[in-house]
Structure formats: structure tokens, C-alpha cells
């Protein structure tokens, strides 16, 4: 009896050692996968916060990020109380600015880091200069390359492009407009114009080449 018991303890011990080891190996081998899974999981949570205003998803994001934010805050702001403020301010912004997060541009953890860094920058200025200003989001716009520059340029570009579409010969203009602005398929357009699809294709090719020429001239 005694023997049996001690053996079972031994077994349990072995088992736990074993599972621990397997876990270590697992993490070592699969750390890339785990990272990816975690990133996907976080992205799902962000999406639920942004689109469904899900508080449950927010609570999970909070559980994941708040200890990290606090540790960063303790290091940067050197005060426990301020670090908790940083957690609150950062997570509040994660909630209110969730719609600015773009999964194609950055990982959730990078985005949360930028929100935190911007907030921390303003808090440091407050501690240092007693200034209640909020400049962090101007210096590192959270919608960076999303609404600012690229959209501006895209907008200017499409405006220029549109102007040049008007300069195309009428038949080419008709095809380019049909495909790109009314979003018809080549077949639909061919049916509509009562011409063979080959004609649509060649008019489109000529039109696009001419547009390319316009644009190159414009930018040189």
C-alpha cells in the first residue's frame, strides 16, 4: 500500500515533469505559430471592439495588455500611480479609437504600443512641465498612412487621372469609364455597346496606355 502510494506520487511527478518538458519543446518549436495565433486572436478581439463594441472582447484585450502597459509605465514614469493612469488612459483610447486600427498595417500589439507611447509622451510632459497638452497623436498620427498622406495623394492622383480620362478619344473613354467607374465586366460592357469583347479589350488597352502616357508626362 505504502509502496503503491509512493509510486503513484513518483508517477505524478514524472508526468508533470514530462508535460513540462513537452511544453518547453513545444514552445521552442512552435513559438512562431504561437505568435501568429496570438496575433490573430488579438486582431479578432480588436475587430469585435471596433465593429460590435464588444465589452467582453475589450476585457480580454485589457487582460492581455494592462500588465505590459503598467510595467512600461513604471519604467518610464517611475511612479506606480502614474503607471496605472497610463493603463487607464491607453486602454480607454484603445476602446474609443478602435475604428482607426487597420489590421493590414500593423499588429495589434504594435498599435497598442503606439497608443501607449503617445499617451506616455503627453503624461511625461505633464509631469515635467505641468502642461495639459496632447501632442502625442500629432507627432505620431494614429491614422498614419491611412487617412493622411496616402489618401491625400491617392485623392490627388485620382483627380488628375479623372481629368485625363476626359481627354481620351470618345470610344476609349467610354470603355475606361465603363470598366473602372461603373465597374462593369468586359462582357457586360461589350453587350451594352453591342461590340465584340475583343474590341472592348483593345480599346481598353489603348486607353490605358494613353493614360499612362499622360501620367508619366505629368509627373516628369
Amino acid at each position: 500500500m505504502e509502496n503503491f502510494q509512493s509510486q503513484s506520487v513518483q508517477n505524478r511527478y514524472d508526468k508533470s515533469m514530462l508535460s513540462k518538458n513537452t511544453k518547453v519543446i513545444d514552445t521552442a518549436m512552435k513559438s512562431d505559430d504561437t505568435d501568429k495565433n496570438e496575433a490573430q486572436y488579438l486582431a479578432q478581439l480588436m475587430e469585435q471592439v471596433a465593429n460590435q463594441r464588444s465589452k467582453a472582447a475589450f476585457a480580454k484585450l485589457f487582460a492581455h495588455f494592462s500588465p505590459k502597459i503598467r510595467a512600461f509605465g513604471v519604467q518610464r514614469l517611475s511612479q506606480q500611480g502614474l503607471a496605472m493612469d497610463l493603463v487607464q488612459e491607453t486602454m480607454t483610447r484603445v476602446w474609443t479609437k478602435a475604428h482607426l486600427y487597420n489590421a493590414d498595417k500593423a499588429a495589434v500589439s504594435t498599435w497598442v504600443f503606439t497608443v501607449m507611447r503617445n499617451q506616455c509622451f503627453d503624461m511625461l510632459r505633464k509631469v515635467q512641465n505641468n502642461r495639459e497638452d496632447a501632442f502625442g497623436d500629432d507627432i505620431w498620427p494614429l491614422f498614419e498612412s491611412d487617412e493622411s498622406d496616402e489618401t491625400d495623394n491617392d485623392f490627388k492622383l485620382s483627380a488628375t487621372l479623372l481629368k485625363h480620362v476626359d481627354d481620351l478619344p470618345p470610344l476609349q473613354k467610354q470603355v475606361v469609364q465603363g470598366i473602372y467607374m461603373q465597374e462593369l465586366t468586359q462582357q457586360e460592357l461589350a453587350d451594352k455597346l453591342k461590340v465584340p469583347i475583343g474590341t472592348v479589350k483593345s480599346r481598353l488597352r489603348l486607353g490605358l496606355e494613353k493614360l499612362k502616357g499622360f501620367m508619366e508626362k505629368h509627373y516628369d
Partner: protein
Amino acid sequence: MIKYHPNQDLLTLHAKGELPLSLSIAVSAHCELCPECAEKVAALTIASSEESFSLAQLSTDNGNMDEVLDTDLEALLADMMSDDTLESAAINLLPAEDTAPTRAVTNIKGQDYTLPWAFRQQINNQWQGIGKVSRLRLETGEAKARASLLHIAENGEIPQHSHKGEELTLLLAGEFSDEYNTYTAGDFMVLNSEHEHSPKTIEGCLCYTVVDAPLYFTKGISKLLNPIGELIY
């Protein structure tokens, strides 16, 4: 073609948010004009987010202090979830449609300049100047740094001034040249008192300048703020 860029140290400190306001504005504005450095900062931001967040992981893994703190975080979460704190924050923090932020525009000598994002809330003073040189002082609240916009009208010369330490010049618009080079919008130059040159502009130019003690250019804001920081880093 931009020829002069902030060095790796400045870009790294900028990504971490450790530069003082005057320099953060300069690096941010440069990146808006320079896709190359913008890309570098994006990569450095990913790196420093990984660094910061993994450091945090280590420090939460040990000690039983954390149990108490976890209760703190638990309490904070409960607090944020109740009382519609989140909803009211959403209302307060979101700008109304018609007040969506736009870049600041400043007018000097009859010309409008649209400034990079970083200047959005910084243009609160009036332009002052005599002749071809005008200056608009920024209030960064930093004791040592003097940050300003400097405008030189066409065929003007950039005034020589004697100072110790370093001066940062970011060319925002127009051009100027000295005996060595011609500078274009986006060029980011750090000069010290040993550099002697007499820049001239033909078409006129708008610059952002920071005159400063050298210390500022090499150390982050948290280190200046907190002497203990020196020991930690």
C-alpha cells in the same frame, strides 16, 4: 532629393517616444517628407513595441507583489466597465465630424504654407522679423531648447548667430545653398558651432530650427527627467 537624414539614434529614440517635444516635431516632420525614414521608424516602432512588451512579461512573472497589483488592474477594469465610463469616454474623445483635425497653415509675406502634422497645435505665436528674415517662436515648454519656424524671403541670407552647442535645421519648403551644397525640402541638418557657412536662398525658404544644448541631441526625455533613469539604462 533629400540628402540629409536624422541618424539611427534619433530615429530610435523617436520611435520609443523618448525625445523632447522640440526634436520629436523635427523627426516627425522629416518623416512626413521622407518615406525612407518613415519606413525606418515604422520598423523601429515594431522593434521597440516587442522590446517593451516582452520586458514587461519578465517583470510580471516573478514576485508576489504582482498579486496585489493584479487586484489593482482587476479593479481598474471593473471600474472602466461599469458606470458607462467607456461610453462617455467615447463621446468625449471622438472629435465631431466637422472638427476633424487638419494640418496647420501659416501665412508669411503673402504666402501660405501647409505644415506637417506635428505642427498642428504649435503655431500659436505671431511671425516677427525685420527685412527678409522672419521668425515664429514655438512654445515647447523646454527650458533649454529654442524652437522656431524661420522664414527667409527670396534672395535672402540666413543670419549667422553664435551659440554653443548644436543647431538643428529642417528645411520645410523652398531651397537654400551654401558653399558646399544645395538643400531641398526635407533635408535634416545638425550643425555645431564649428560649422561655419553662409547659406543663401534664391527662391526663399521655410525652416524649422531648434537651438539647443548638445545634451538634448543625445539623450532621451526620460533620462533628462529622471536622474535614476541614468542608472537603469
